[in-house]
């Protein structure tokens, strides 16, 4: 029964693909994501780039491989939420830059402690231009961490706009923080705090 449904779904899917979007050459979001993860893991496993003295080099290499799959503007827009459209184009640009730096420091920094974690693709759901790819990180001691990626199709290119770790959406988390700061103080203060965050990060590196 399930099999028949699947076959039906697949044939419908294939025909829709053939007839409606024969021009779009978009790669499946799940496949794209896993390829990117693999690229990232290759960098992390590279013996020439391992060890603490190679940290900066490794981070650079990793960033080069994976940054292209993130949609930082979309992330910034969502993290600012209702406050986004009140900003001028210059402010938006500055914000995207600052937020990208924060995300980069936070998440690239995490990979320094990479210790043979495995990534498994569980399933992907797609609905027109939005997709969710569910994966599972398995650590060496067998702990499993659910990591979901929300992706957006931007003219044929799937890009990540949110990462959800054990139910905690990264973008929602930042939005709570930004909202909280913006409730109490003007936008300039938020920018200032974000700048401090970035300089503090570079100082500790």
């Amino acid at each position, binding site marked *: 029964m399930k099999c028949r449904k699947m076959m039906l779904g697949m044939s419908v899917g294939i025909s829709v693909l053939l007839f409606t979007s024969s021009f779009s050459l978009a790669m499946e979001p799940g496949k794209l994501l896993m390829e990117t993860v693999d690229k990232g893991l290759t960098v992390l496993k590279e013996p020439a780039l391992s060890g603490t003295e190679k940290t900066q080099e490794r981070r650079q290499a990793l960033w080069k491989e994976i940054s292209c799959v993130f949609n930082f503007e979309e992330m910034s827009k969502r993290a600012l939420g209702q406050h986004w*459209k*009140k900003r001028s184009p210059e402010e938006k640009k500055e914000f995207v830059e600052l937020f990208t730096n924060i995300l980069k420091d936070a998440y690239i920094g995490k990979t320094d402690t990479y210790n043979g974690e495995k990534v498994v693709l569980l399933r992907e759901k797609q609905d027109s231009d939005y997709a969710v790819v569910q994966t599972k990180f398995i650590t060496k001691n067998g702990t499993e961490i659910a990591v979901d990626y929300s992706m957006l199709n931007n003219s044929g290119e799937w890009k990540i706009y949110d990462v959800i770790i*054990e139910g905690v959406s990264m973008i929602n988390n930042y939005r709570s923080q930004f909202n909280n700061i913006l409730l109490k103080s003007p936008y300039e203060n938020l920018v200032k705090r974000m700048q401090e965050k970035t300089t503090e990060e570079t100082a500790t590196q």
Partner: protein
Amino acid sequence: MRKSVFLPIFFVLVVCLYMSFVWADDPTPTVSKSGGTVGDSKGAASYAVDKELKDTHVELKIPVTGEQPGEAASESKGTAATPAVTEAKELKDTHVESNDPTPVEQAAKKASESESKSDVTAYAVNEDKELGNNNLEVETPSVRDPFQSYNRGVFVFNDKAYYYLIKPVYKGYNKVVPEKARLSVRNFFSNIRMPGRFLNCLFQGKINGAATELARFIVNSTIGVGGLFDPAKSQFHLDRQNEDFGQTLAKANMGPGFYIEWPFLGPSNARDTLGYIGDIAMDPLSILAFFINPLVPGGASGYNTFNDVSVDGGDTYESIIKSAVDPYIAVQDAYQQNREKKIKE
């Protein structure tokens, strides 16, 4: 003598019960529509006001200070919403109540409406309900935090306690005790605490979950050498059911109540605190404490908590703190989101 220990617990329980009902009187949590309001008729400006005034129950929103009513309308697109928002801030302190739509509000509405027309594409995600996890539209229930200044104090204390007390100790502990042994300690305590998870599965009507827990207990207590290993997971693919009493209460429609940061225990809320007390009551270790000696099981339980942190290496906590602009809010939000997920499961 022993009764005196339970008196404060009972007191806390009553207070929590009372508070959570007082605060959680509305079963549907207030939802924040961050960003998602653009397409709504409500408009961004009045939304911001709503959010501002949520706690003070001020209905609306007339300009108190000398804002000119017509001004908002003449503002250029994109900034039109700002005056109303600033007014809302001022209003917070004055507690003015009125339901009459003022010219400013109407103007702001108009402005945001015209804006929403031009901005539809950017936020089209709001209509996309199918996937259910587009973050503009998945509304994060706002956290009630009436004791924020106290909580922030405890947060700082916990943070210092973690970095200066617990972390140095587990670093040493990790050097002495191999990871395999630490995992076994964790498995052992987890196995002992099966009754709590089993009962909570039952309370939530999860018969399969309860059966899984029972099967896990039998397998791990025997083949797993008294719970030191977890063959139920590795051999039989029976996953541990992380159900606790807080989740049971949530399933019974209890709202989270206020957010609270406990010393050493970390983030919680009124409901989960109550749940925590319920879990203690269901913990075989506390029954041991009651009948034998409260120090031994208490110490064992504390050791287990410490051991868990050492297995995790504090990674979860540290990564949230490191990447945060406001660590307190980051932890609060992460706690909230994570609990929501566990309750849904």
